[in-house]
């Protein structure tokens, strides 16, 4: 299979880009794919912390682009999954140290080694976010059902369609909506934007709906992607379905808190 470069982006901060990068990366790696997750948030890296690899970072993306370290020296192999790797961002360097030529070279090398290259974008629409999306074949747009997040996602979708390498070459970039921090209680009360409202406004296909959950917070506390920390939890199952959809499978969409069958009620909670 040819490598796929995927950017996880949103415009707005705090919506769950890093959590989603780690969870999707681990889910794809669990399915046997060779995966690297790349942190583009220079100066404010956090993917290492969410992956539980913060004590193992010595070299980073900027060291590689500047030739101070080889790619193999900067890649951190996950201790739980041999197929999962992390390329951390620099915490101390200025973000201008990341050049587009340097990133292009690294992305080409990563494409040769991995099935999935997942780029965790920084928030915002500046250079860092543009570099993270530039080489992408696909994008996961992480959005909360909340007005400012939807507006920022719309802006990011516009950028995906205009500033990326694919857009400039007149090619399409595959865009998918990942709705995160979905709160079934608020949805039931009618106090949250509806899934179909968000879909209608952004008009890109839905990859998954991740419920707001303590399990996500617990997973980040212990430094493990939620799909590894607690695979039977609701958010983990939603992420695993989303990963399978990225691989091209068609699965029925689960809306958190909706239409559980009797069987689902009896057995759907915690089977594993």
């Amino acid at each position, binding site marked *: 299979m040819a490598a796929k470069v995927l950017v996880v982006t949103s415009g707005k901060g705090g919506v769950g880009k890093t959590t989603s990068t780690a969870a999707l990366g681990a889910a794809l790696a669990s399915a046997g794919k060779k995966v690297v997750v790349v942190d583009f948030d220079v100066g404010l890296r956090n993917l290492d912390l969410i992956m539980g690899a913060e*004590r193992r970072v010595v070299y980073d993306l900027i060291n590689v682009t500047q030739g101070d*370290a080889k790619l193999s*020296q900067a890649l951190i192999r996950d201790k739980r999954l041999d197929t999962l790797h992390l390329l951390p961002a620099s915490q101390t360097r200025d973000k201008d140290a990341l050049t587009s030529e340097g990133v292009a070279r690294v992305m080409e090398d990563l494409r040769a080694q991995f099935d999935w290259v997942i780029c965790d974008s920084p928030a915002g629409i500046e250079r860092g976010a543009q570099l993270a999306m530039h080489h992408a074949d696909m994008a996961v747009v992480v959005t909360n059902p909340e007005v400012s997040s939807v507006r920022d996602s719309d802006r990011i979708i516009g950028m995906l369609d205009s500033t990326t390498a694919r857009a400039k070459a007149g090619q399409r970039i595959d865009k998918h909506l990942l709705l995160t921090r979905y709160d079934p209680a608020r949805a039931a009360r009618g106090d949250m934007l509806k899934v179909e409202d968000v879909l209608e406004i952004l008009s890109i296909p839905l990859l998954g709906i991740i419920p707001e959950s303590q399990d996500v917070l617990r997973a980040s506390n212990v430094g493990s992607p939620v799909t590894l920390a607690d695979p039977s939890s609701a958010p983990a199952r939603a992420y695993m379905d989303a990963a399978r959809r990225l691989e091209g499978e068609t699965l029925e969409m689960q809306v958190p808190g909706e239409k559980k069958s009797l069987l689902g009620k009896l057995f759907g909670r915690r089977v594993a």
Partner: protein
Amino acid sequence: MSFFSNLFGKKNTAPVARERLQMLLKHEKVGNSHNQLVAVLQEEILAVIAKHMQIDRDKVVVKMDSGNEVNTLEIDIEMPSPARA
């Protein structure tokens, strides 16, 4: 999650988060000049080792002690097992 923590309700994760953050921030914030030298030595030693194998940051311990006659520099490096190197 261990068998028991699953069986008897989940273990609290907040203390783990606190410990991880303290450890991380201690490394990122380097204080006075004496500590600075030790930190620089640790970083450079780590950088050399990491060119050849993956190693946890806390497996390289650098300590400096001042005695009456001599100062000592203690460097303790715990190598990863060959399977993971």
